[in-house]
Structure formats: C-alpha cells, structure tokens
C-alpha cells in the first residue's frame, strides 16, 4: 500500500520489473502442475509440450516475476501497483503550464483516457475513465498543490480502482522552458497479469501517456497538431478513411488554433 505521501516520488519503490501477486502465483503454480500432469500421458510431442509449458509456469510461479509484463515494460512496485511515468520539455514558463493542468475539469483534454473530471469541492473531484472493459469512476482528492511546481492526487478509500498520480513542473536547464514529469500509479485488477491483459486489449498506459504529453507539447508550442489526415494519395478514398491516424487533434487544439 502506498503511503499518503507516496506520490512525491517513486524512488522508494523497487520497479525493476513486474512482480506477480500471491494470487497470481498460486493460479500459475496450479496451472503448471495441471499441465505437467497432462504431460505424463500421450505421445512424445504431447508430453514434451505439456510438460515443458507446465514446468515453465511452475518456475515462473516460484520466481514470482512476470516476464511478459516486464518485456512489455510494465513496471510494478513491491506492493503490486503498476507505475507509469514519462516526461516532456515544453518551451513555456512553468506557471502557465501549471495553470492548464490545475484546471482539473480540463484534464480529459490533456489525458485522453479520462472521460470526465468533475470538481466537487476544492480538494475532491470525481473521475471517470473509459477502460478496455467499460466505464469506471471514483472520487479522488488533491494531496499536493504547489503553484507552478507540482500537483498530486490520490483516489479516496473505497475507489473501484485504487490510483493516484502527480505532475511536476521544473524549469529546464538553459532557458529551454519547463520539464513536465507525469507519474501515475494504479492497482490493476489481477496485478501484473491484468496489466498485460489491459495492454493486449489496446489500452497501453505508457504509450497513452507519451501521446498525451506530445500532444500537450504541440498544443502549447505550435497551437495545432501536424497531420496528414485527409491528404491525397494513391489509395482509394475508403482505404484512406480506414487508415489509423496516429494523432487526431485534441479538443484543446480545436478550441485554440482552428
């Protein structure tokens, strides 16, 4: 369990890779034993396949690390929380950028996985997220608010997904503007396995965060998003519509430059 001030830094946590939780390890161990049992019967190929897969599962359960999650760069700490962080440098003063983030109801424009944030009072707010398995919402409260420097929040007790985060605003060396660092942490249902499943379903928190930060940088520096959406090509019109676009313009851009 994260301490209330845990949002300040993740330095105290080991985030060397994804660790399996106790329930995950038990499940994996029984799966491994089951497979090995199946591997005692049948032909050579079958015995090798089941025996091998079973032994692998058992070894992973014993070691307690989730190599799939680690390979996907999913970081979990010793308490089983998934951590995501990234940074971007933007050529604008910290106070200005802080002001955009401090307006919590604007957060869904900055962080695209957020559906809605409703401010309840000066500390509490209600957050709604569209996840791979439907909509989830919870109440959060500000745990830190240092104008021009840092904003931190944490879900309140009883939230369906325990989570929190912080945004740091630091002057970049050499008058390059402001370094923005975002750190998010959440307890994924089913631990690191749940994080892997979520990622397989297309919700990739670290990629989302990266996209969010780059979009914010471009909104701030350019006032618009570079795009090739709708450009001419030798593809038929229908195919062009079907092509995935890396970065559709945010609501902020439409309100701004367009």
């Amino acid at each position, binding site marked *: 369990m994260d301490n209330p001030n845990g949002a300040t830094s993740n330095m105290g946590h080991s985030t060397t890779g994804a660790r399996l939780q106790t329930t995950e390890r038990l499940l994996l161990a029984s799966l491994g034993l089951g497979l090995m049992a199946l591997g005692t019967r049948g032909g050579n190929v079958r015995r090798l396949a089941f025996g091998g897969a079973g032994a692998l599962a058992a070894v992973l359960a014993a070691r307690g690390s989730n190599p799939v999650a680690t390979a996907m760069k999913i970081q979990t700490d010793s308490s089983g929380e998934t951590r995501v962080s990234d940074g971007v*440098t933007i*050529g604008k003063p910290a106070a200005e950028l802080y002001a955009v983030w401090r307006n919590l109801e604007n957060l869904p424009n900055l962080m695209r996985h957020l559906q809605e944030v409703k401010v309840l009072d000066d500390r509490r707010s209600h957050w709604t997220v569209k996840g791979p398995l439907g909509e989830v919402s919870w109440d959060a409260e500000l745990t830190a608010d240092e104008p021009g420097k840092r904003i931190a929040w944490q879900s309140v007790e009883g939230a369906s997904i325990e989570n929190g985060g912080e945004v740091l605003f630091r002057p970049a060396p050499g008058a*390059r*503007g402001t370094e923005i660092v975002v750190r998010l942490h959440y307890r994924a249902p089913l631990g690191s396995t749940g994080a892997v499943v979520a990622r397989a379903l297309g919700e990739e928190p670290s*990629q989302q965060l*990266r*996209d969010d930060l*780059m979009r914010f*940088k*471009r909104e701030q*520096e*350019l006032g*618009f*998003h*570079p*795009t*090739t*959406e*709708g*450009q*001419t*090509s*030798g*593809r038929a019109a229908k*195919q062009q519509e079907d*092509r995935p*676009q*890396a*970065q559709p313009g945010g609501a902020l851009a439409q309100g701004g*430059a*367009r």
Partner: protein
Amino acid sequence: MKAVIWQGTNKIGVETVPDPTLLLPTDAIVKISSTAICGSDLHLLDGRIPSMEKGDILGHEFMGEVVEVGRDVKKLKVGDRVVVPFNLACGVCDPCKRGFFSACDNSNPNHRMAEALYGGVSGGGLFGYSHIYGGYAGGQAQYVRVPFADVGPFKIESDLRDEQVLFLTDIFPTGYQAAEQCGIMAGRDVVAVFGAGPVGQFAARSAQMLGAAQVIVIDRVPERLKMAEAAGAMTINYEQEDVLTALREATGGRGPDHVIDAVGMEAHGHGPGALLDELQVKAKISFDRITALRWAIMSCAKGGTVSMPGVYGGLIDKLPMGAAFAKGLIFRMGQTHTHRYLGPLLSRIEAGEIDPSFVITHRATLDQAPELYKTFRDKHDGCIKVVLNPWG
C-alpha cells in the same frame, strides 16, 4: 493530378490522384515546376525503409509556384517561386531554434512509430519518405501540400533557372553539411569522399569550396568518377585498386584527414564484411550494408572526422569501433538541417561559385519516372541525376 506512387517494393507507377488540399491554416499548396529523384528514393524502391504504404506519393526534391495559402500563412504569397526543403520543421521548438531543423520535435505526426524504432526520440517529418517520418505526401507530382509554409519554403527572387536552384532542397545542402561538419582546415586537410553519386559530387565540391588541400573521391562507376575529376578531385576506382592501400599511398601513409560516407546503407563492395552484411539483409535481420562506413573508419587519419550524409536505417554489426577509438575519430551524421543552408548556398550559386546543374544527366517527364528510377538504380545509361517535369 499526376503523381509518382509507391506501389510496393520494386513497383513504382504514375497514377492520377486527387489534387492536394489545405489541411491546416499554416499549409500552402505549391504547383510543382521541377522535381528530382534522389538517391535515397532508391532505398524506398528497394524496400529498405520500413513503414512505406502502397499508394504513398514519393518525392522530396521539388520546387514551384505557390498557388494557395492557408489563412495563418504570413510570409508566403500566391505567385511566390519557392524551393522547399525535403524535411519539415516547425521553427519554434528548441531544436529548430538552435538550427537543428531535421531534429524538429513537432513536425512528425507519427512520432510514436519513430520513437518505438529509434529509442524514444523522433526526428522531424519528411516529404514522401515513409510513415515513420510522418507519411507526408511527396512532390514527384503536379501539386503538393506544404505544411509549415512560413518555415520551410524559400523564395527565389533572382532569374536563376530551376535546374540551378532545385538541388537546394536536398542534395546540395546535404553534400555541403557533410563537408562543413568535417571542420576542414583550409589549405591543409585532405578529404576523401566515398560514393560519387549526387551527394558525393556536392560533398566533394563543397570540400573544395571550404578550402580542402585535396579531395579524393572513391566509386566504381567510371562516369561518376569522371564527373568528380572534372571538378579537380583525385579518384580511386575500388574495383581496380585496393581502397585502403590507395588512400594510404595518396596521403603519405596518414590517411585522409576527414572521410565522408556519401553511400549509406546500400553499399556494394567486397570482402568478408560485405558478405556478412548481404547475408544479414537477406535474412531480414539487418537493413544496412556498411562497407563504405567500414572503409571510412579504417582509412581516416588520426583525430579525423567520419562524416555520414549517407542514410542508415537499423542496427549495425561488425563496425570497426576499435579502430575508431584508437584513432580518436569524430563521428558526425544525420539528416541535413536544410533550412540553415538555403540562404548561404543560394548566395554561392548567385556568386557563380557553383552551378548545381552540373550533376543532371537525365531530363524527363513524370510519366517516365518509373523507368528512370530503375535506370538510376542500375546506373545505366550514365545516369547520375534525374530531373522530372511534371507538366511535360
């Protein structure tokens, strides 16, 4: 309009496609008067650059007349005659402000693809050069959409012919940057240039303009070597001589003070290294054949510069890093910061120091592009540089 289309590896065609339109208020539309095939387009023909899609419009060396501007375009007006740098830059991010235009933070809409492949960072967008570099439609066409219209396009107000200024879009600045970043000491330094294609030709002439005591050009195609000789360079045909021995001899055993690799990822050449590269490329575990780079490192004098305008795409194996370390070499590389050089190099053209049209061997229409891609790749018919007229 007519446009040159990438239809797959080794398949390039000319198709009729919709005219480009403004997509953002900072865009302009340019009616293209001249466009060229670049050596780096051959990497696309050969399928060496990942993330091309069937239907992509090729071409990144083009110029023409502005026919439409978005409402936020301030400097450019309809009727302006412009050359357009092959790379897109936003002009406001930190790399752009410092003059590192090709490292622009903001011009690549597909930054996540580049970040995944190139370690968390993405360079700027390029015209007609794969989706990793933004997927922007290129300029081997009759019209092109030019984003960041106030940043890239450079007005040509003198009466110089297209052929004299067209190569400001890429190969002249690319060759020039390659020479400039060697830090040539005028009257003293010997510069070797691997590859006598268009970029190598401009690198050799730029090294001369920057005062190199001697320029040595290495290739195997006789007419390319002849073109370099015409500029006063010494040449080595690596099919006829051992390159490293010839370079040692030419420099009294020191090696060239600086070496420019104007070949890049599709080097020919021979020896065990070349064989290994070829096998790795065939097995699809490597993009790059690096004979030229190996030779550059092995031949370069102590304390010298290995300057690499040639394009590399992936992970490189069996690079003689020990030799580079032992000699204290300096490596300079990357896409050209074209925007930096437009003004200064135009001045050199206007002053008559160089007429870039020397490099052109073939003039054709857009319809002939597919055939000329192959002529250029195979170095048939003395082909060194192709210029296309989209309206011919």
